[in-house]
């Protein structure tokens, strides 16, 4: 499908969440007749159900469009999608590495946000040509001039060259296409040189195995080629190459500058390293392309089968899920309270929710999930260093020399009137004030360093509440720093429940302990016998709450002799208990294991 290299444009759309990236992408596909309008499901690029429901893009994908420009020439435009949520920020860099340019989209009613900036910097780092686009100009509240100024003043682009558009009405979409052709440089790359193709993504397909998305940088690749992965020397024979339109369409070959897919009998995703270079086995390149560091899970939680799901089912489901999402990790774990299960690692809280939801929805499991935590680094007095991903595995405090926790640097962009609220919030979250940059008359960016643990739980939601939805957040991981951390234990009727243990900062331990005990008291239903809930720090009990014993539970009458109706009601009630875990003599509902998330900063 040889397209002259000068007629190819590879680009991404980057934007803050909700600024209209998916809508615009759909419109581009429609205008270029890549997809028939009638067949178009809303937001075609978000293909997973969960993605569509939540309106977020998780997996990036590439689509090839044909476009006849006003200069009369036929162009191939490859749109490489990027994910829209901070949890998956690393995937943005992956996608950008396969492009020469990017559309930087800003909602004309919102202006530049934290993610706009973060993504713009990623594109600048990779020397991409950035086309500023002011979107949603169909709205009455659109402020085009202010958006232009922000592009110039905040991002450092030429705001006067911004394209005005509305992904919704289609206004300006042609201008965007023209700008892509005019301003984004064609790829460079010698088609005669030895093959070098960058893997920027991969998905697993039940019928075809792993489908590798790649950008050919030099040389060409075709079915029948013997190739190898430069990172690990794994060798494969290429079965098929092609482009995504967005359906897979096989092609004779892919040449330097082109973007497409490759299928070559790879059985599982962990054999495919994103960022790896594919080369020709017979005529190998000497040097791999610059890759990118693989994302590491930062949030961990336990997942345990609830009563009706068994451990083996969970294991199978995790194995299967891992085939198409290798960004989460898992390893067998066991809990005294919850039995056999797994410890899973995720890129963020949203990622965790998505994985849990997929396990339940796609595999029909009922799971009990424990409160997420970060990983801690503990240096023992013996000098041994351990990574702790599970609070209950924390060694006794007298054996610990230093406990360290991961820190992040957060860029929080807010209208100035909310700055003091944000500073309050950051203080509560143990934030270290770095500086505040005033962006324009109305907005500023607060830069804070703070423990990742404070961010993963509920920071994002809190920020939205504190700023009436106007605050936006972007963060980078800095590394471990020492912290005065203690383990908080919960006891039910005197027995420690490992799945409820958590690690908290000493200053807040008492507040959190009281808050958690109070929440549990509300969440655990009254049972036949009284239940004592105690919170303890370092073995010392700081609070006790009581769940009173059940008063009366009896159906007075028998529904006019309809005994079967009563039995069915009881069966229904019993089914509702499936999410309960029997912990010693106490039945604990699934929400109780997440109670920590509901404890406010002031312990309420």
């Amino acid at each position, binding site marked *: 499908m040889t397209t002259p290299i000068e007629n190819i444009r590879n680009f991404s759309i980057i934007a803050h969440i909700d600024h209209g990236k998916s809508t615009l992408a759909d419109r581009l596909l429609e205008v270029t007749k890549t997809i028939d309008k009638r067949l178009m499901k809303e937001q075609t690029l978000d293909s997973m159900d969960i993605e569509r429901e939540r309106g977020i893009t998780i997996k990036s994908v590439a689509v090839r469009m044909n476009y006849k420009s006003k200069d009369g020439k036929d162009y191939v435009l490859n749109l490489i999608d990027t994910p829209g949520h901070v949890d998956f920020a690393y995937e943005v860099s992956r996608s950008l590495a396969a492009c020469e340019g990017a559309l930087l989209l800003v909602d004309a009613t919102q202006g530049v946000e934290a993610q706009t900036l973060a993504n713009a910097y990623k594109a600048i780092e990779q020397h991409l040509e950035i086309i500023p686009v002011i979107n949603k100009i169909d709205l009455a509240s659109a402020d085009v001039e202010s958006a232009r100024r922000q592009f110039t003043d905040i991002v450092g682009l030429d705001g006067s060259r911004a394209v005005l558009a509305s992904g919704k009405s289609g206004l300006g979409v042609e201008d965007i296409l023209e700008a892509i052709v005019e301003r984004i440089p064609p790829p460079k790359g010698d088609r005669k040189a030895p093959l070098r193709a960058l893997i920027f993504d991969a998905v697993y397909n039940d019928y075809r195995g792993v489908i590798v998305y790649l950008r050919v940088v030099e040389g060409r690749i075709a079915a029948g080629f013997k190739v190898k992965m430069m990172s690990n020397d794994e060798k494969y024979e290429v079965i098929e190459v092609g482009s995504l339109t967005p359906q897979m369409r096989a092609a004779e070959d892919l040449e330097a500058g082109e973007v497409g897919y490759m299928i070559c009998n790879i059985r599982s995703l962990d054999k495919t390293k994103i960022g790896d270079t594919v080369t020709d086995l017979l005529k190998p390149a000497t040097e791999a392309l610059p890759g990118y560091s693989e994302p590491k899970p930062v949030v961990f939680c336990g997942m345990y089968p609830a009563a009706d799901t068994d451990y083996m089912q969970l294991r199978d489901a995790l194995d299967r899920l891992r085939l198409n999402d290798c960004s989460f990790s898992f390893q067998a774990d066991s809990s005294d309270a919850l039995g056999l299960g797994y410890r899973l690692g995720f890129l963020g809280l949203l990622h965790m929710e998505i994985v849990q939801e997929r396990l339940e929805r796609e595999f029909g499991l009922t799971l009990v999930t424990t409160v997420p935590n970060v990983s801690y680094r503990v240096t023992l007095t013996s000098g041994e260093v351990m990574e702790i991903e599970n609070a209950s595995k924390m060694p006794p405090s007298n054996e610990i020399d230093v406990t360290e926790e991961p820190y992040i640097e957060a860029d929080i962009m807010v209208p100035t009137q909310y700055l003091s609220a944000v500073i309050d919030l950051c203080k509560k979250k143990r934030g270290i004030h770095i500086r505040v940059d005033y962006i324009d008359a109305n907005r500023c960016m607060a830069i804070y360093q703070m423990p990742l643990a404070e961010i993963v739980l509920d920071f994002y939601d809190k920020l939205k509440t504190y700023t009436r939805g106007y605050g936006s957040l972007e963060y980078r991981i800095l590394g471990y720093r020492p912290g005065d951390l203690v383990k908080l234990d919960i006891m039910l009727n005197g027995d420690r429940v490992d799945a409820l243990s958590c690690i908290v900062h000493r200053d807040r331990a008492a507040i959190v302990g009281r808050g958690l005990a109070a929440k549990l008291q509300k969440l655990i239903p009254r049972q036949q016998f009284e239940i004592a809930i105690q919170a303890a720090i370092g073995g010392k009990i700081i609070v006790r709450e009581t769940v009173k014993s059940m008063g009366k539970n009896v159906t007075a009458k028998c529904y006019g002799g309809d005994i079967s109706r009563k*039995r069915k009601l009881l069966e229904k009630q019993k089914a509702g208990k499936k999410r309960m875990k029997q912990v010693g003599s106490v039945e604990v509902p699934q929400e109780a294991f997440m109670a920590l998330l509901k404890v406010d900063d002031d312990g309420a």
Partner: protein
Amino acid sequence: MACPYCDFVKRPISGDAPDEFTEALCREIAEFEGPGEARSIFFGGGTPSLLSERGFARIFEALHHRFEIAEGGSSSRSTAGAQSSIGRAGARPSQIEITSHPEITIEVNPDDVTPERARFWRGLGVNRLSLGVQSFDDVVLKFLGRCHDTEAARRACGVIGDQFENWGVDLIFGAKPPSAWAASVAECVRFAPPHVSTYGLTYEERTPFWKQRHEAVGDDDALAQYRHAMDALGAAGYEHYEVSNFARTGFESAHNLIYWRNEEYAGFGPGAVSYLGGVRARNLSRIDTYLTRPGEKEESLALSARETKVETLIQHFRTRAGIEHAAYRARFGSEIEEDFGDAIRTLAARGLIADDGGRLSPTRRGYELNNEIGLALV
């Protein structure tokens, strides 16, 4: 006359409707394809006084025509396979039991009781009366949305006590104000009915009361009231023979014991439930469709062996007598232990049931938490 907390099938009465209704009910009885003998009758679920005396008489005639209800009949309870029941307003069916004294009960409200009516009922063969007093406190009666007042309740108790040897009073606890409960129970005891039922107020969906469920008396108060009833009625010589029922020896409700032993019965009337040949079935519950197609079922459920066992145990565990190991074995050909071993052991460990070797029966706590027993068994 409808109680706002009651989810029994009701209908507005107007014009000739009652006669139309009587005819439909009689037709259902006449066309009933089931056993021909009956050992108890229960007119339940509301207010038979709404029927004209003629209508009442018609229904009795239909029953006698269809069923053998021999006074002083010889068949014993265990062999009589036939029951028939009449739920005038449906969901509380009635039964006919062939014993030396077939129990024929009607459920009435205090306002419907007059000495003349009582005589009329006796003349028809009614030998047991269940009086829906609910409370001897006017504030509580208002709270419950009842039409009668305590005066009417007292008068009715006097009339019934004079004319019937076998009668009972229904009381409701869990209503507001809770402080009125002890006095209601005491006054009830003074009238000395041989049978007392105490029902905890429940807030059923699809009743006007459902909206008021936030006003419900707290769990602990309701428990205290229930316990007070157990103590006070026990002290007055009543046997607490079933979760909600107290009786002097010999005055247990034969009709209700059929339910509690999970035995068979037929129900007549809109929404009435039957249990015959292992099938639990419910009549059409809408009055208009019932009138044109009496006896037609809106739901029929053939119970599996397991379901039958579960229901049998749940019901028996409502009664003081519980269930005898031997009776279970005779009925199902298996041991309770092999069918429900785990649940029974857990329940015993929780102190909800006790095993004296011969029988399993609920403890006092097992009465209070009776649904917990059911939950362990399903």
